[in-house]
């Protein structure tokens, strides 16, 4: 094998390694939902979010803004998801009812992403928790 061959093999291994996070999950290494640093709702309670997971990851803050304005300003008391499910547009009563470990879900991800939403200064966890 010439240098060229070695380089090609090396490149192949390199590409495999670099893309491991992509195919590693497909190969069945990780359960879905798939971030082991976050605590997801008990699958017995829910396996799906309000919208598709990727959409939620990218757009949950916009959804919350919409819910806020719907409920507080427009008096709309229902959100119909793209799959046709109905939800009461409330941060505490709906989001946190499923995501019942706020610290290990919302906050953990926000800490990592260095965002500090001020919602919890006012909004409680279900049952009046600070």
């Amino acid at each position, binding site marked *: 094998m010439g240098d060229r061959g070695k380089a090609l093999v090396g490149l192949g291994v390199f590409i495999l390694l670099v893309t491991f996070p992509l195919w590693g999950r497909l190969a069945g290494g990780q359960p879905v939902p798939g971030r082991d640093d976050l605590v997801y709702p008990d699958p017995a309670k829910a396996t799906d979010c309000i919208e598709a997971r990727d959409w939620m990851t990218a757009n949950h803050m916009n959804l919350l803004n919409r819910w*806020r304005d719907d409920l*507080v*300003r427009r*008096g709309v*008391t229902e959100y119909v998801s793209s799959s046709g499910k109905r939800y009461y547009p409330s941060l*505490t*009563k709906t989001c946190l009812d499923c995501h019942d470990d706020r610290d290990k879900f919302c906050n953990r991800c926000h800490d990592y992403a260095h*965002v*500090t939403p*001020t919602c919890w*200064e*006012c*909004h*409680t966890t*279900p*049952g*009046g*928790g*600070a």
Partner: protein
Amino acid sequence: MEKKTRREFLKEAGTAALGLGWALPLAAAGCAPRGHNIAGSQRQWAMVVDLEKIQDPAVREAAQKACARTHNIPHIPDPQEEIQWIRVESFEHVFEDQIHGAMPPHELERSVLVLCNHCTNPPCVRVCPTQATWKRESDGIVMMDMHRCIGCRYCMAACPYGSRSFNWRDPRPFIETDAEGKFLSDFPTRTRGVVEKCNFCAERLRDGLEPACVEAVREVPGGEGALVFGDLTDPHSEVSHILRETPSRARRVTLGTGPNVFYIG
């Protein structure tokens, strides 16, 4: 992007708003139409307070306590900083424009429950620079959007009834909790720097419930009917009926604000 804290943002916004400060109240003063006109809203929630029945302190306390627990209202002892949605004041003070020298002292000293009047022409709404407070067309409630409030307090200056309170400090340490330290309600608390007031229990009406104070006084012996709540645009509602049959008063009606809390007895 450099993130601003809420406080930093508000400070800057506040400085910018100062420039407008002198003009807004002037604009507001000029344009309040006279008299009671409820045409603007499809409905108008209103309350009738029976002064005889609320002379029992147990009735007043029931109303205040229910309000505080429902909305996680802090109990801050310092009168300069207290937060009040429904307060007790003397007749003399509440109806200062309606008293005369021949009124007996026991009348002047009567206790009166006061709360936001959910005015037909609310001056607070006119002055709010962010539309954090507005008159809801569907039912006439003067709403508050805590997310938009920048704490400029123009609304407090504009309200002739003193119905609004400002959070000078973090209210949470002063809010009642249960044995486990949990708040008694999931109604969001407020933060330092926002204005708040009675919302006629908009969140309970949404669920088909009456305002908490109205429900609470009914439980007290002799409190039945001390506070009556209903739609003023509906001629068959209990409030309309009472106001047709019984002499009533409201606060500072000559200002043209059109208060929707009425007093009988």
